[in-house]
Structure formats: structure tokens, C-alpha cells
């Protein structure tokens, strides 16, 4: 209030003039700043949105390509394995069979039966690769244990898994998504890491559900994962990303503190997984 005490008319008019101009400049400056700041924020939001859309597009393309690859694999299995087997069985059972002697007839029927059994087994294998029966009937824990036992049984790698807190089964479609993610990660480790062991653990903490994979081979870190996600390569990783997106989950790739192991952590929200998904990825 010191300025109010100014009594000299000349000084009053000067203070009044400068004060008014100053306040006006501040006000207009503030309004202009607000307008431009808001525009800048919106532009930034738009840029972020475009980036997210590009990422979505990459994920969608990866998902479509994987689906096509899966179809091609099933088609190849059916065409290359089941097709020739059934054709051979047909040969054994063709109409000339009636003209042969009884022993040859029996031998041909036996061969055809063997081939049909093989074909049934082949189709069962294809079906199991599409939807593992253990997963459907006994849940994620059994399916993962089964998968790891098979890997260990092959002798190429020491694989073990342990579920610490999995008393209640999740929604079947969510279990399938998590299983596919684990399968993809294990496949990557088998293909690229040259590891001698894989160890999977499951546990929960508060509202979070964790799955951790350790291995001692060559792995990737979060930076590598982010780079691969933005590029056109790394189809499997994009597929993992898009599957986890359905469950609002996250994945982290890191090197263990001891710098000896690579660690992959899948972080999911319990509540999200208890909800049935409107449309699963499978």
C-alpha cells in the first residue's frame, strides 16, 4: 500500500499509467500464454496418439501374420503328413484288394490300420498344439508344468516351473492367453538363447499377479524389446505384447542383478484376469 501514499499528482498519474499498462500487459500475456499452451498440449497429445496408433497397427499386423503362419503350418501338416498317410491307406484298401489272396489281404488291412492310427495320432497332435487338453481340463499350472516336463524330458535343457499362489483357476480364455505368452517366450529361449536352464515361478503380491522366467542364455533387455517392438521384426514379441494388452498386462525384460541370468517378468492385474474377455485372441 506504499504506492497509495504517493500524493504528488505527477507521480500519481505516472504510477497509474504504468500500473495500468503493466497489469494490462500481464493479463494479455497470460491469456495468450493459455491459448498457446493449450494448443501445444493438444498437439503433443495428437502426436502421442498417432504414435500409439502406429504401434497398434504394428501389433495388429504381427498378429495377422502370425495367424497366417499358424494356418500355413496347419495346412502344411495336413497336406504333407496326413494327406500322404491317408493316400497310402487308401492304396492298401483299393478295390484290387478283393482279387488278392487272404494272407495278403490281411497284411494290407493291417498296414492300412497302422497308417490310420498314425494319422489319428498326427491329427491329435495338431489339435493339441492348437488347444492343449491339459490346459483346458486342469488349468494353467498343469499345462505349464507339462510343457516344462516335455522340454526337460527332451534332454536339451533343464526346465522347471513352480506356482506359489495359484489356488483358483483364472477364466479359461485368460489362462490360454497367459499360456500362449509363456509358450512364445519359452520358444524364443529355446530358439535363440542357447540357455542350459529355464526356471519359471508364479506368485502374487497385492492386486498383482506375477510370472517370472529366468534363463542363463543370451537374452534381451527392455531397451531391445522396445526397439524390436517399434521395428518390423520380432513378430513373436509383438504377438506377446498384443496378447498382454488384452489383459492390460505388462512385460519386463532385464538382466539379473548378478548379470548372470536374464529375467522376464509378466505383470498382470488379478481383477482383470478374473473377468471373462469379450473376445479372446484364439
Amino acid at each position, binding site marked *: 500500500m506504499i*504506492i*497509495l501514499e504517493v*500524493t504528488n*499528482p505527477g507521480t*500519481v*498519474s505516472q*504510477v*497509474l499509467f504504468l*500500473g*495500468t499498462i503493466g*497489469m*494490462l500487459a*500481464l*493479463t*494479455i500475456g*497470460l*491469456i495468450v500464454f*493459455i*491459448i498457446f*499452451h*493449450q*494448443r501445444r*498440449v*493438444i498437439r503433443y*497429445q*495428437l502426436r502421442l*496418439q498417432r504414435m500409439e496408433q502406429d504401434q497398434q497397427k504394428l501389433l495388429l499386423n504381427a498378429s495377422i501374420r502370425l495367424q497366417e503362419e499358424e494356418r500355413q503350418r496347419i495346412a502344411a501338416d495336413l497336406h504333407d503328413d496326413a494327406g500322404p498317410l491317408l493316400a497310402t491307406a487308401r492304396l492298401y484298401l483299393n478295390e484290387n484288394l478283393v482279387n488278392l489272396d487272404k494272407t495278403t489281404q490281411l497284411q494290407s488291412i493291417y498296414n492300412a490300420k497302422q497308417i490310420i492310427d498314425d494319422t489319428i495320432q498326427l491329427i491329435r497332435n495338431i489339435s493339441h498344439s492348437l488347444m492343449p487338453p491339459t490346459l483346458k481340463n486342469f488349468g494353467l499350472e498343469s499345462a505349464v508344468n507339462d510343457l516344462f516336463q516335455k522340454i526337460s524330458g527332451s534332454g536339451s535343457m533343464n526346465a522347471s516351473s513352480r506356482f506359489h499362489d495359484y489356488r483358483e483357476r483364472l477364466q479359461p480364455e485368460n489362462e490360454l492367453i497367459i499360456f500362449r505368452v509363456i509358450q512364445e517366450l519359452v520358444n524364443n529361449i529355446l530358439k535363440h538363447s542357447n540357455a542350459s536352464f529355464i526356471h519359471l515361478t508364479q506368485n502374487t503380491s497385492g492386486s498383482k499377479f506375477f510370472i517370472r522366467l529366468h534363463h542363463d542364455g543370451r537374452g534381451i533387455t527392455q531397451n531391445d524389446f522396445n526397439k524390436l517392438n517399434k521395428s518390423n521384426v520380432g513378430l513373436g514379441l509383438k504377438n506377446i505384447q498384443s496378447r498382454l494388452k488384452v489383459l492390460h498386462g505388462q512385460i519386463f525384460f532385464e538382466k539379473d542383478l548378478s548379470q548372470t541370468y536374464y529375467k522376464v517378468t509378466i505383470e498382470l492385474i488379478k481383477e482383470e484376469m478374473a473377468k471373462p474377455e469379450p473376445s479372446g485372441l484364439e
Partner: protein
Amino acid sequence: MFYLLVFISELLPVVFYVSFLRRNRHEGLQVVFIYCLASFATEILAPALKSAFNVSDFYLYASFTVIEYSLLTLFLYRSIQDSRLKYVPIVGSVVFFTLVVANFLQGRTSNFDSLSASVEAILIIIYSIMFLYAQIKDPSVLFVYNTKKFWVVSAFFIYFSSTLFLFLYAATFTPKEHKSYWYINNIFDIIKNILFCIAFAMKKSDKSKNPVLESYEDSYGIEP
């Protein structure tokens, strides 16, 4: 000539509001319209009241300040959506009315109620900044200048910022000084009324909606 211009500028917002009634309906501008009416009525009635009832300038200005503050605060209180900021006008009003009452009880010391007018100006400036801050934080507004309320608040903001120093000194002015400095108030009063006219004449715009949010709403089916 200049006073005629001031008089016309007081009338213009009223005319604009009535002319574009459809555009201003459901926009929460009724309070501003009442304020414009009160301002115009004061402009007409003040000389008549002074001559007929010998009412002092002090009481005329003080009464108008109270009405003006009440209406503008009500408008800004209704316009600020953030519940954390809403308590500020309430606290400010308690302070303002306490000061006004104290000032009235003390009796007139000059021709202008400087204290009430200055406190009013400071409080309205604070509320205007709060409103603009809330607008920045609101992601549903893309172009803040596409909303009517922005122009109305800018009008208050510019008017009260520019006349704050004048109101601070007004009580110490001699009648001659008062007359020579009061043109500052008149100029910014005209600017304020022009900004009101812009606000009243503006179309109700949906373009101000944030395209980022709209796109998200479309993509993920989120309700706005």
C-alpha cells in the same frame, strides 16, 4: 461524444444477448446478461438518482460494486467445475462482504468506495485466473477461445486488471482528477462490452471438443 460511446457500449451486450438468444440459451450466461442489464440501468439511473434523491456517489458506486461482485462471482462459481477450486470464491466472498459491511459502517470518507472496488477487482482477477487454469486442465476443451465463457472471463479479467490501479487511487482523487482519470475506466468498459458482444454473438461450437478424446471415445467406446 466519448460518453455517448460508453453509453452505447453498455447497451450493446444487452442487444446482442437478446438478438442471439438461441445461441446463448443453456450456456450459463444468464447471470452475465443480468449484470449487463444492471450496468446499463446504473448508467441511466445514476444521474436521476443523484438529482432526485441527492444520493451520494459513494453509496451509488458501493452498491453497484456489491451487485457487480455478487453477479460475477456467481457466474465464475458456476463456471469453475473443479470442486477443489470452488471453495475459493466462497472464502473470497466472506472476506469481501465483511470488508464491505465494515466500510459501510465506517461511513463515507470520499466520493468513491476505493477499498471495496479494489478488493472486488483483486478477487475477480483471482477467480478469472482460476477459471482459465481449470480450462487448461480440462482435456475436453480443445480451443479455449471457441467457448463463450472464455470471452466473458477474458472481458472481466482485462477490465479489472486495467482498472485496479485506478480503483486503488480513486478515493484520493479530487473531482477534477477523477474526471480526467476516469477515461481509463471508460475505455476498458468499452473493451469489456465488446468482448461480451463477441461472446454473445458466437455460435455454440462443437469444434472446441478435443479430437484426441473423441478419437479415443470412438476407438474404445468410452463415454464422454
